[in-house]
């Protein structure tokens, strides 16, 4: 038996409640209105509303606010699908203009088989840590320490350490995020457009004989490359060959051919990994075991 009376009371009650709340809210909506970037609301709409806080914000709306103000990237919402996040990114216009691909390049070729170590470093196995201990014990005080801070810093797994303790950049994977540049205490990395093919893989400012004593592939500032290159493309500065990339269009393989140590190289990344080719006259080194400590 269903009582009509209670249906009526219930109906009246609910309708009153609904009316009162709706009126209060809509009045409040007008009276208490505070201007806000409408995009926040729109971005909020595109979020999954899981209110999970996984993005590090207190919920979806704060995250939307953070995205709109540029504090956060849409991709930091892990609940949303990648396409969804891409949609948000498109909406707030964080797309980048098309640019030439940049990659990270290492200005050192002194692996453990060609560069001498002068002291036996013991301690934290990071390049940063070693470099504060009297430079880390490598003979060349500009050279790579080989403890792989850059490889650890690269979130895209674009760097691995080869068997001589030198980092190798996998150009396909490198996004030019600059992390390795920051990580290296010896400042050996720099970002270059892939079209910069002529490259000096050395940073030693030691005088020629001294430099060669510390590392067999060091730039000895002998000047042969300068002589072979078009006027102005290469110059010797601080006992190092320096390439003027303003004139990159003039670059060719020629300057590398007579380099006695092979410090200046030609990088063509068609092979997937960064394999630089050395000149014909460069000293051939077939050693694979590390040089002894002197």
């Amino acid at each position: 038996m269903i009582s009509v009376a209670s249906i009526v009371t219930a109906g009246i009650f609910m309708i009153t409640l609904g009316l009162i709340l709706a009126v209060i809210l809509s009045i409040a909506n007008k009276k208490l209105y505070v201007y806000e970037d409408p995009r926040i609301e729109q971005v909020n709409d595109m979020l999954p509303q899981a209110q999970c806080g996984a993005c590090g914000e207190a919920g979806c709306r704060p995250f939307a606010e953070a995205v709109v103000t540029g504090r956060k990237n849409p991709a930091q919402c892990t609940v949303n699908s990648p396409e969804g996040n891409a949609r948000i990114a498109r909406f707030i216009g964080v797309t980048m203009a098309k640019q030439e691909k940049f990659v990270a390049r290492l200005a050192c070729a002194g692996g453990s088989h060609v560069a001498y170590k002068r002291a036996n470093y013991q301690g934290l196995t990071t390049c940063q840590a070693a470099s504060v201990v009297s430079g880390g014990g490598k003979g060349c005080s500009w050279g790579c320490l080989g403890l792989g801070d850059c490889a650890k810093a690269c979130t895209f797994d674009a760097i691995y350490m080869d068997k001589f303790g030198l980092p190798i950049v996998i150009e396909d994977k490198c996004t030019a995020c600059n992390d390795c540049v920051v990580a290296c205490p010896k400042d050996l990395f720099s970002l270059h457009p892939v079209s910069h093919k002529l490259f000096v893989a050395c940073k030693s400012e030691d005088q020629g004989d001294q430099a060669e004593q510390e590392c067999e592939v060091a730039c000895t500032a002998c000047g042969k490359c300068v002589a072979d290159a078009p006027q102005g493309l290469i110059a010797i500065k601080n006992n190092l060959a320096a390439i003027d990339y303003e004139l990159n269009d003039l670059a060719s393989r020629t300057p590398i051919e007579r380099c006695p140590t092979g410090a200046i190289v030609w990088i063509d990344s068609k092979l997937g990994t960064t394999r630089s080719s050395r000149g014909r006259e460069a000293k051939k080194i077939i050693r694979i075991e590390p040089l002894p400590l002197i």
Partner: protein
Amino acid sequence: MQPDSLIFIFINAFLINNFVLALFLGLCPFVGVSAKRETAFNMSLATIFVMFVSSTSAYGINLVLQYFDLQFLRLISYIAIIASAVQLVEMTMKKFTPALFRALGIYLPLITTNCAILGVALFQTFREYDFLQCVAFSLGAGAGFGLAIMLMAGLREKLELANLPNITQAAALSMILAGILSMTFMGFAGLGGGGA
């Protein structure tokens, strides 16, 4: 101690039957917002506040429902009232105390959505608390939520510095921590109650 004394109600909701660790209420924000101490703290304050607001407004609407003998509409009206109350508070805050809103307001939509808020309202009705008891209960529950989430946040911040095994990341870690915390809170059982 009398089971209906204000102090007992408070302690019971705060420690013994802690909303999060013993009653399983409000777990989503407990897991989601406990990564940083600062956010957890703001969240606790906001929760205490919202619990208070919704507990009192639920008390009010329950009186009306009882008057018209419409208890079966309780859930619907509680939800409607709580949601609008929080929304009103949120708007008011945004308008008049933007600083406070920035600190706490962002948590409000997040916590309207959590079971602990509705739980307070429902439990106080089941237990037939009077107004003061409702206040004590909501404050105790809010404080209990705050305590739990603050402890959790402290632990999680500390563990951020640890070498966690890969399998213990994020959610699993939070659950195990909550389990141990919950075992710890079992020690409070009977406080003020059975002992003497």
